[in-house]
């Protein structure tokens, strides 16, 4: 819904823009041409293909039991992973900004590793570390907890790949926050706990929520690491992106398209939410 209205409203905007800056149009021509071919055209192809399904059929495929269980694993697990990183991300950002300790610079730089590490490598490593005879998995195996090739493993992969988002969104905000306000609160007799909840946390909230939303968005779309660390069994640990690939492998293009459309619309809604959160944060900063 959001997307179709966006697409309808964009051409007049483009045109008037082009009109006003026609003399310096080369960068614009390249930008618009490239965006159209690389981004708008493929998106249009997906929606056009989805539109060839009758609404009833679309609904039937989109809410089939396999699809529903895949959404459940994808969205619920992503959400839990994002929340996990929300809490620990705040803690890590706090520690990195406020305290000094040995190897801090290296640890700070290493936070971005999940961005830089190819997802299939992440999957391979997590599968090996969290398998029953892996470094961490072997500690849990005697307790009867299996991590790799279960939903828990999917969650660990999502925690890994979305780790940097909260830390990286929060760090600059924390850095700019003035310590005097906290100290004033202490001087006025606030307890440490009160200071945290009522003075420190509120201005950080937009950044924290933006980071959580970014992490959630990344986790929802994740494929590479999950395909390796999960078994891809329906109703167990099958995520929506893996389901799309399975459908494509069976040449079931309508099935892949319908689930792909659902996933795309959810991603665009999260993107919208992130934009609104960032606008909110900007207002807070002013």
């Amino acid at each position: 819904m959001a997307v179709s209205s966006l697409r309808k409203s964009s051409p007049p905007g483009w045109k008037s823009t082009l009109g006003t800056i026609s003399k310096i149009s080369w960068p614009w021509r390249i930008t618009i041409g490239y965006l159209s071919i690389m981004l708008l055209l493929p998106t249009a192809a997906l929606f056009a293909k989805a539109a060839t399904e009758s609404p009833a059929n679309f609904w039937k495929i989109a809410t089939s039991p396999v699809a529903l269980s895949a959404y459940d694993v994808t969205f619920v697990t992503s959400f839990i992973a994002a929340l996990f990183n929300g809490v620990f991300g705040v803690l890590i950002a706090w520690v990195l900004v406020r305290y000094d300790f040995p190897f801090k610079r290296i640890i700070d730089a290493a936070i971005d590793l999940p961005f830089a590490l190819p997802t299939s490598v992440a999957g391979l490593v997590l599968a090996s570390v969290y398998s029953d005879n892996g470094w961490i998995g072997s500690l849990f195996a005697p307790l009867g907890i299996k991590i790799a090739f279960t939903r828990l493993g999917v969650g660990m992969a999502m925690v890994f790949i979305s780790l940097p988002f909260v830390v990286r969104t929060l760090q600059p905000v924390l850095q700019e926050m003035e310590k005097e306000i906290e100290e004033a609160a202490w001087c006025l007799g606030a307890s440490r706990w009160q200071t945290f909840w009522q003075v420190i946390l509120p201005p950080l909230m937009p950044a924290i929520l933006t980071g959580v939303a970014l992490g959630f968005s990344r986790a929802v779309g994740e494929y590479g690491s999950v395909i390796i660390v999960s078994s891809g069994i329906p109703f167990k640990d099958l995520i929506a992106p893996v389901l799309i690939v399975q459908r494509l492998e069976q040449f079931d293009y309508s099935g892949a398209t319908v689930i792909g459309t659902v996933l795309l619309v959810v991603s665009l809604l999260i993107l919208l939410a992130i934009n609104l959160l960032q606008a909110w944060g900007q207002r807070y900063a002013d």
Partner: protein
Amino acid sequence: MPTKLEQPAGHSFGVSQQDAPDQERAWVKFTLIGVALAYLGVVLFIPAVNVFYEAFKNGFGAFIANLTEPNFVHAIQLTVLIALIVVPLNTVFGLCAAWAIARHRFPGRAFVISILDVPFAVSPVVAGLMIVLLYGRNGWFGPFLQAEDIRIIFALPGMVLATAFVTMPFVAREVLPVLEEAGSDQEEAAKTLGASDWQIFWRVTLPNIRWGLLYGVILTNARAMGEFGAVTVVSGNIARKTQTLPLFVEEAYKQYQTQAAFSAAVLLAALALVTLVLKEILERKTRIRDAE
């Protein structure tokens, strides 16, 4: 080591109470650092160390033997080839888009900026699916491409398109804020003095944005070489034909060739480490410039 940040806090505490809060503060500090490091250790550091351990646990010879295997060599060549095509393409686009957005105010500007973010928000698998629906046998251009005997899906062009899609925003995203901060005063001054557009770009704009641009290019390259989801969907994953290094890692793992998988993984992890180091250097460069 004594901390700079610690001192003002300790000082302000000292107003009413002398030692107790400082002690409590130290206790809180070490607990917080401990928990943060423990979390990072389990989630990040143990897995990172494990790549290198697994790759080299049978000695360096086994690693080298894997590296000379033909499938593997071809995967490296293809990965580098795709990056060599995609990185310049997205650099040109990113520069154009960033410049066009930074130097103009127009209705829907915020909307165009968020459109740039779409490839980050979309699942790579969905990106691959879109390309299949466009260029695949049953896609929009399918009949035309078949008549002309052009293969895009399950061939190099499709893999390039998929990689270009997922790495599209990096350069624009890094350059845009630098351009906005630099402002257009110098460019306008150059124009008044009679410089051509090219001269302005090479002598004024480019030097201003060079670190941001380089940073964007490095991120684009890292993602282009490491992309898995989108490339899987469009490549067909045929060894020695359409198999990139990340696909090789998965394939080898699924074939129970764990040693080969980890040897390839180590190369990709090394690429990630180089990316991180360069990123750190470039960030320091921009920070120094900010400070000036």
